[in-house]
């Protein structure tokens, strides 16, 4: 049966980029459907009626939602170029840190970026602690996945892109080369990967987009 793969996403959504990168790493042909998140398409609302969010992968008409879940689905369906490690313990570590990024790191970092001046020092300290924990996970490796990109690298696109954008928009320094030399080195290698380069929007575009998204918040500051 011919494979039909569609990806509902949005150009500035890093969660959508995760899926694009994974599909390209696997050499899977797919159609990208750009969603206007202010005006979501009936198809998107049908395929992700619970959360109404991007990304949604549609494989032969069957929808899968939630980016980390989609990554696992992709790895289990297209078996070439595995994204997750083979060993169950290494898989558990990769899943642990990916959840850490999405459920803890991003929120604590958002606090650091958005706090009032009097609370900011403490919030930044806390965010740096969490970033350091993630940096320590890299150890001596090129990438979180070892010699090549893996599931955790893909998940950590948030670190590679979102932090830089937010730092510029909010004018708060968090992920600096001075404090996180290893993590910043990883960021450099990550964004330089040909597949990532193809998928990641230009930083200036992301900064402009984020400024507009946060305009009310920025105005109130």
């Amino acid at each position, binding site marked *: 049966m011919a494979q039909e793969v569609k990806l509902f996403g949005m150009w500035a959504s890093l969660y959508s980029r995760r899926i694009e990168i994974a599909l390209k790493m696997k050499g899977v042909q797919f159609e990208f459907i750009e969603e206007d998140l202010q005006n979501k398409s009936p198809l998107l609302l049908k395929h992700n009626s*619970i959360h109404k969010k991007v990304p949604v992968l549609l*494989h032969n008409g*069957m929808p*899968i*939602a*939630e980016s980390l*879940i*989609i990554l*696992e*689905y992709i790895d*289990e*369906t297209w078996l070439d170029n595995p994204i997750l490690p083979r060993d*169950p*313990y290494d*898989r*558990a570590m990769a*899943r*642990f840190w990916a*959840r*850490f990024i999405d459920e*803890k790191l991003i929120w604590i970092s958002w606090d650091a970026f958005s706090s009032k001046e009097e609370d900011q020092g403490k919030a930044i300290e806390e965010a740096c602690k*969490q970033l350091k*924990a993630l940096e320590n996970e890299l150890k001596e490796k090129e990438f979180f996945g070892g010699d090549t990109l893996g599931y955790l690298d893909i998940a950590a696109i948030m670190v590679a892109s979102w932090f830089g954008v937010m730092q510029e928009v909010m004018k708060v320094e968090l992920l600096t080369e001075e404090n996180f030399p290893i993590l910043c080195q990883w960021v450099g290698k990550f964004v330089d990967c040909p597949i990532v380069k193809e998928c990641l929007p230009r930083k200036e575009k992301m900064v402009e987009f984020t400024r507009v998204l946060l305009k009310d918040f920025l105005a109130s500051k």
Partner: protein
Amino acid sequence: MKMAKENNVKLHGMWASPYVKRVEIALKIKGIPYEFVEEDLVNKSQLLLQYNPVHKKVPVLIHNGKPICESLVILEYIDETWKNGPPLLPQDPYKRAKVRFWTSFVEKELFENLLLVARSEGEAQEKAIKVVFEKLQLLEEGLKDLFQGETYHIDGETMGILDIVLCSLFGAHEAQEEVLGVKFIDPEKFPLVCSWVTALTEVTAVKELRPPHEKLVAVLQFIRQRALQASAA
């Protein structure tokens, strides 16, 4: 001579924690022998802080000396490591994705909001209760799709990760009703969810691991009082 593979399993937990309960149920279903290490969460042990420096929480599974944290990560690890027992996830990738999706839904949308109900009162609580009912309705509808005409069979002995997580949340629904005064597992409003939860509470592993009703009530009351005092302060 056949060399037995070293298989030392310890679980650091707390008797009342639903997150820990998930792992205990999984270990029991797979028939994995383990040592339970009771943690005092007010006075966390050095060992716990060393094994889980990031979150400092239970459960932590220690397998042959290596720690794994976060209950859902632990469940998948157990499934991938002990392949001889009943599977905790289906084989088919699409079915696995659906199970993971609904597990994540129960974890994030139901669990979090039920906690809010327990920790609040007055208008804030009413709002949280409303949200739980909305999410339960979504789950009820989702079950029709998830089970898709196949009768969902719980044979009394096995459970998957979605069963485990739902059970860890609503297994104690009678205690929740008593303390919170709200009936969430309502057979009229949510017949599929209700019959599913009821079936899960009859599974051998669940029955063996369930603390006595009075203890569950007392713990929930304690959590509630402490939260209300903290917010009043």
